[in-house]
């Protein structure tokens, strides 16, 4: 889902960068306000952990593999979509600058897709589904699946606006692939949430709220 440099024209890339920077600024404000002042280092170390988590290859089918993006997981655990924005921005900077995965001019659009859209979709679908169903596996799975699937559609639209991939084939290829990968994202997110609730319920935001 990482759009590389050259696939988005510079003028459009600048617009995406501006939008991304607004959300990054809001995420920094969230980190300062909500994480009892100076806990930014904690989130930074967690971002390093998420980066390592993305290195786990998970079998999908027909010999292909995928990996966890972790945006929905971070947003659910830390209790804010801005957690995903903050963490994924740092992960994308490292991936783009040191590994060439993603791009520099396209970093803005990648932050929007995986951090902003993934984080917001993941967090609010989890919140809404938990309120409606009170069922963690269903809510966690669906939230993580949407957090993987919706950004891929956004990616197809952005490539269409850029004129570097037609819309319908883009939506089909990106949608089908990420719908499959999203199942893995969903299952792993639920397993991780279960583990966290069993071992460290105090760090899972919605558990903290339930326990008062």
């Amino acid at each position: 889902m990482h759009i590389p440099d050259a696939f988005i024209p510079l003028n459009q890339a600048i617009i995406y960068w501006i939008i991304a920077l607004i959300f990054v600024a809001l995420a920094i404000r969230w980190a300062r306000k909500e994480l009892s002042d100076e806990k930014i280092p904690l989130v930074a170390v967690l971002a390093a952990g998420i980066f390592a988590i993305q290195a786990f290859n998970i079998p999908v089918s027909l010999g292909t593999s995928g990996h966890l993006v972790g945006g929905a997981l971070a947003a659910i655990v830390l209790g804010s979509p801005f957690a995903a924005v903050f963490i994924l921005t740092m992960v994308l900077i490292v991936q783009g600058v040191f590994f060439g995965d993603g791009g520099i001019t396209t970093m803005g659009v990648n932050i929007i897709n995986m951090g902003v859209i993934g984080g917001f979709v993941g967090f609010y679908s989890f919140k809404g589904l938990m309120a409606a169903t009170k069922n963690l596996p269903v809510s966690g799975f669906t939230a993580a699946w949407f957090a993987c699937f919706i950004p891929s559609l956004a990616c197809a639209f952005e490539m269409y606006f850029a004129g570097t991939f037609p819309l319908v084939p883009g939506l089909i290829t990106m949608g089908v692939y990420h719908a499959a990968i999203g199942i893995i994202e969903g299952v792993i997110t639920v397993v991780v949430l279960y583990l966290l609730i069993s071992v460290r319920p105090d760090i899972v935001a919605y558990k903290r709220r339930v326990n008062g």
Partner: protein
Amino acid sequence: MIEELFLIEKDAYKKSPFHDLDARIKIVLCFSALIAVVSLPYSPLVFRAGLIFIIFFGILWASSRLSPVVYLKRLLLVLPFGGFIIFFQIFFQNRYYTVFHPLLSLPFGISIYQESIEFALILLVKFIVSVSFIILLSSTTKMQDFLEGAGRLGMPAEFTLSLGMMIRYLFVFGYVLRKMQQAMESRCFDPFNKELPYKYRLKKIGYAIGTLFIRSYEQGERTYISMLCRGYGRKSHLFIRKKAILRYEWGVLIAGMTFIILIPLFFLQMY
């Protein structure tokens, strides 16, 4: 990807005229070259401009005394996603051409167009040149130096601090991940072993990922508390020592930037 981290950093610790340049010079040169390539219109002039940029890259890479194999290996690793989009271009019409000449007609109404192949090649050239400058930057600049360079260039203090923490712990979690994978292997667990039930494999990987999440969270807590003990507060920031850019570094920067700015201007004039 994290396995690659150690190799990249090992290359960045080597000595060469390019390695020795101030990180700010390398950041400005590489990012500017990348932006210059991206700013070129999607037209065949990208081939000639791309060739000149890749020669420029080749000179800089040669001055880094790194093997071309290092570059090629890293390039191959980042090709998949871009390569996928580039490959499928040949089957589609795009907005950058008005007339399309089919070269080959395939079943189900699919055609390969001459102009689409040209467009795919334009994208490929732009993609390879831009990725090459990123590979050059990361292979010749230590992560800490990059961070300090970015800080000196005006990256906000919140980000230099957070990114500094993240970079430091990337290596810690790289080792943790390696140990976890070795532990899995020593127990003969292979996530891709089809003889094991799929559900069982997913559950085990999920627990491993969850464990890594908890370890990183707890490491974050410990680090945060340790920092508090050392007087960390809201106004804390990463200390970046002032460093002057040497005369020869100014020379490299001015020469490089002149080249990077003039090449696109020259080709845009022709466009």
